[in-house]
């Protein structure tokens, strides 16, 4: 258990999330990719808080702000997906090619 190990795992989580965001067609799956990326950064934040920042409570505040950002991202994402679905009947990105009109 070390800072390097934790950052490595965080990088892997972030990379898997990025792969999901780039490769998935469905909106909800793309959001899952975003959540994974945020998950990785949360882990990196806490690792740095523990090993490199001397347990400064601001590190924890940053971590809960990241969590809040995750929730806001999810709520707005779902709301937008619902709106797009209602008005365009699209559930995957390919169907939005007429977004420009």
């Amino acid at each position, binding site marked *: 258990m070390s800072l390097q190990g934790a950052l490595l795992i965080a990088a892997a989580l972030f990379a898997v999330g990025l792969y999901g965001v780039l490769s998935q067609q469905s909106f909800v799956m793309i959001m899952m990719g975003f959540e994974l990326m945020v998950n990785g950064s949360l882990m990196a934040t806490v690792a740095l808080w523990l090993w490199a920042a001397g347990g400064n409570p601001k590190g924890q505040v940053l971590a*809960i702000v990241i*969590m*809040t950002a995750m*929730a*806001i991202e*999810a*709520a707005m994402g*779902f*709301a937008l997906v*619902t709106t797009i679905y209602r008005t365009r009947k699209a559930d995957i990105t390919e169907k939005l090619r007429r977004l420009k009109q």
Partner: protein
Amino acid sequence: MVALAAFSVILAILGSSIALVLAGRWVAARADLPATAPERVPFSGGLPPEVHAWNRFHARYYVMALLFLTFDMEMVYMFPWAVVFRSEGTVAIGEIFVFISILALGILYAWRERSLGWS
């Protein structure tokens, strides 16, 4: 490391409960007769099952779910507040009144928009 010992108890309790139930199920399943095709038809109140249940399903409370997503986040801030409340005193009480009233506005808005019911 005292806290981690307590958590290892929790983990062991969780793991052993799951393992025991799964093991019991595995043992009991060895005596089971294989279900016949008519027995495997899902019960649908007497109507013939025509489609898989796993289909697109419009959960009509989805607006409430979005409200929950954001409202739940408030708890993240309120638990640490409760811990330090008595040592911080009146500052803490003012802050939490502001915080709670901001969030209560959200509920009020949702209720006013009638988005708590099925849509």
